[in-house]
């Protein structure tokens, strides 16, 4: 050892650069390819397509509608998700341990199914109604992050404020402390709502009279013209306002998360004391039940009724229901298996790519988090088209994968990667650097250190990220519509089946899809006794 120069090569850096390259190939390169193409319509440089952004009054009104819909839906999500989280984390609400995880269940049904279920019950099609439905469908983000924020506050801080300044000040202090997490949850809701076109578009069938910008963007992409045409360039340019709006929300979300309270796993920590609800127990319990009722019971009930033939003239019957499920199992089990398999692969891809990126983001390169947000900032349809354009170019080696499920897995994985990076980076930041240092001093190599120290400590979050990627892939409609291997995905099948009036089969399929989505959560609960919402 004496006098010898030994390079202290940073462990894992090669893996990181390799993964970053994969990320660039999957997300950045396709978008850049599409973006630069929009400046060269018909083969020559032109800003024509970009000059037409928001040129008409209709587009400006649509963007305003998008902003109002996003704002209202976020408000509903905060009220229902954040409120339920506050009740389950901060009060002696009866059944709080069950109601907390139940606030995440609306994720199991795609927003379009929630919308269809509601439309089955009511004829209302106003913007506030759609905002409520989208708010319910995305409220789990607000619930999970508010709960995380409340769990990160040391109870002693609250108690010292309570003793010094009284109850009101203590509650305000609490709000300020977890504001960053609440804001992060709210902005995630906003991001998903702004890029959602399926639900507003569904209500067009129900004769709604207003339109949002994401519908216009999707419409342009439905017939974007030949690649390289002015029309295709206009389609790219038209996405810019939405991209800016979502990008802004994501950057604020990122800043908010960084400012959020951070409790390391080694900290001396005391949870917040619970507040007694007293006579308010029953109203609080009823409030906490709203989200599961609207987000899971209502769609489950309506879909089961559909499967039993409620939309047909002959009324509902158990026999029809059995027949609907039998038809799904015999005719569509391949699609269902394919969908669940694709979602599982996408979830796995999210974890595999997000893990090294998140580790570097937490330890040395915080800019990775901002970079990784790009796939979530662009509307799903734009990402899909970008992937199609790049992977369909016969001059590029990736063209061979164009028609294979790999394109779909890549699309889903890329789309939901940001959530994985954010969650895992947060978990990595909670691990004191001294854990790794202690392992390094033992002389163990980087692989063993990952397997024995960091890996097991990040595993609960990695599993949660996998489940999130899996569930969100099962809800994603835009990519399934745009990407050719998405033809057999159940959300797309569901939309088609319902469109063509086969609601009984559609209902059964939606129920089975929700069960498939719940599968990893149920397995996790069986294996560990925990739903794992704290790990996100």
């Amino acid at each position: 050892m004496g006098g010898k120069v030994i390079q202290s090569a940073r462990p894992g850096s090669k893996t990181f650069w390799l993964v970053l390259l994969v990320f660039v190939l999957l997300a950045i390169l396709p978008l850049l390819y599409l973006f630069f193409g929009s400046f060269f319509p018909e083969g020559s440089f032109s800003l024509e397509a970009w000059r037409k952004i928001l040129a008409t009054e209709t587009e400006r009104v649509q963007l305003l509608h998008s902003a109002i819909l996003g704002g209202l839906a976020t408000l509903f999500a905060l009220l229902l998700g954040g409120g339920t989280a506050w009740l389950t984390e901060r009060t002696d609400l009866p059944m709080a341990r069950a109601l907390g995880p139940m606030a995440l269940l609306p994720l199991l049904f795609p927003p379009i199914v929630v919308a269809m279920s509601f439309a089955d019950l009511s004829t209302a099609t106003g913007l506030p109604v759609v905002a409520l439905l989208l708010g319910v469908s995305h409220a789990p983000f607000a619930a999970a992050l508010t709960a995380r924020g409340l769990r990160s506050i040391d109870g002693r801080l609250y108690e010292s404020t309570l003793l010094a300044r009284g109850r009101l000040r203590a509650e305000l202090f609490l709000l300020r402390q977890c504001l960053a997490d609440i804001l992060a949850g709210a902005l995630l809701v906003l991001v998903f709502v702004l890029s959602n076109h399926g639900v507003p578009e569904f209500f067009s069938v129900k004769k709604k009279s207003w339109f949002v910008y994401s519908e216009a963007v999707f419409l342009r992409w439905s017939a974007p013209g030949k690649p390289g045409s002015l029309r295709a360039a206009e389609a790219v340019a038209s996405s810019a306002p939405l991209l800016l709006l979502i990008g802004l929300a994501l950057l604020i979300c990122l800043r908010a998360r960084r400012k959020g309270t951070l409790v390391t796993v080694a900290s001396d920590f005391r949870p917040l004391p619970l507040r007694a609800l007293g006579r308010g127990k029953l109203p609080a319990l009823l409030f906490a039940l709203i989200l599961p009722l609207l987000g899971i019971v209502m769609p489950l009930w309506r879909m089961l009724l559909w499967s039993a033939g409620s939309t047909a003239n002959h009324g509902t019957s158990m026999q029809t229901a059995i027949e609907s499920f039998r038809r799904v199992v015999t005719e569509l089990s391949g699609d269902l298996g394919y969908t669940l398999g694709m979602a599982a692969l996408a979830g796995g891809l999210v974890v595999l790519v997000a893990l090294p990126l998140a580790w570097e983001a937490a330890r040395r390169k915080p800019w990775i988090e901002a970079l990784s947000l790009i796939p979530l900032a662009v509307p799903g349809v734009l990402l899909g088209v970008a992937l199609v354009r790049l992977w369909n170019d016969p001059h590029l080696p990736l063209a061979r994968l164009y028609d294979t499920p790999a394109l779909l897995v890549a699309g889903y994985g890329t789309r939901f990667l940001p959530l994985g990076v954010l969650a895992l980076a947060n978990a990595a930041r909670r691990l004191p650097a001294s854990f790794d240092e202690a392992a390094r001093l033992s002389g163990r190599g980087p692989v063993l250190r990952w397997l024995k120290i960091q890996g097991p400590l990040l595993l609960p979050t990695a599993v949660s990220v996998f489940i999130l990627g899996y569930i969100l892939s099962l809800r994603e409609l835009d990519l399934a519509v745009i990407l050719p291997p998405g033809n057999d995905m159940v959300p797309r099948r569901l939309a088609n089946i319902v469109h063509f009036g086969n609601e009984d089969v559609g209902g059964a399929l939606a129920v089975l899809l929700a069960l498939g989505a719940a599968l990893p959560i149920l397995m996790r609960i069986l294996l560990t006794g925990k739903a794992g919402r704290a790990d996100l």
Partner: protein
Amino acid sequence: MTLRISELRFARKAFELGPIDLEAQGGRMLVLIGPSGGGKTTLLRLIAGLEAASGGSITLGDDLLTGPGTFVPAAARRVGFVFQGLALWPHMKALAQVRFAGKCGKKEATELLLRAGLPASLHKRLPGALSGGEAQRLAVARALAGHPRLLLLDEPLRSVDPHLRDGLQRTLRALAREGEHPTLCVTHDREEALALADDLVVLAGGRILERGRPSELCREPRHAFTARFLLRADILPLQGTGPKRGCALGSFSVPDWLQGEAALALRPGDLRIHQGDHSQSQPKAAPEAGPLPATPLPASTRPATPTTTAFPTKTLLAPVLDRHFDERGCLLDIEIEGQPFSLLLRPGEPIPDPGMQVRVGLDRTPLVVQADGGSE
């Protein structure tokens, strides 16, 4: 095995450490004391290879660990480290932690845990299920796993209840002395430093202020910080620049080695009350069983350095600010030249009330030390 540190430097943002020159012998415990932010932990991290120095060298035995063009990574240094927060891996049982750290078998890991004082019944527990003292013993055992050539302890008794410290201190002393490795321990706790150290180094502001055996530093601290830290002395600046400098208590000879600003380090027992000269009410008698005599200081092994001449008998009136008890007896807080000073009452001496004025003077030779700001 000897650890030699020469001209070691480190800089990050506004913080600068060094140049540090240090030598730690095998089988001995060198304790680094000093205030928080003084650079103690950074020095340990530089030695462990967890930070890269900006200059100087670190040699362990015949091996150069850090030096010009050389940096042996932490993983190759074979250094045992007890971290300040312990850094026990929360998902790994006690025995598994030692086995992983030491790449050793069950038998060896069990022996190490037992040596560190963790009973066999706790070997299969997770760190979260151990008490503060038990977790500390596990951290020590883990640091000793893999036969380290150097043991580094960063505030090793910080999270341990006071009544458990004696046992752990005994264990740490024994472990340091039974091996050939040098042991470096960082602390800002006076009792801990004196209980553990074979050699003491005072580190403040990124520089070594002074070093020596604990008995030497307790008997003749040369720096105001050392006197404050080890002897709980209060510092009274001396005015002037010549060989004799003065203050409200008289004029004092300054030793030859002292360059720059000088100060009096007044230990609580250095001052006494001149009876019968209280300006307000009569003091109460001190309780019979209360105060204990001041602990005699350890004998010196360092060559005697004349720090003072015979002390003057000048007295002055000082207001009593407060009074309190500790293991030494009843202490008065009095004010001299606008600063608070502690005065230890003798057993049976009446206790003045706060607000009274007492006439105080020196009772024994005070220490003349280097005022804050200088270094070794």
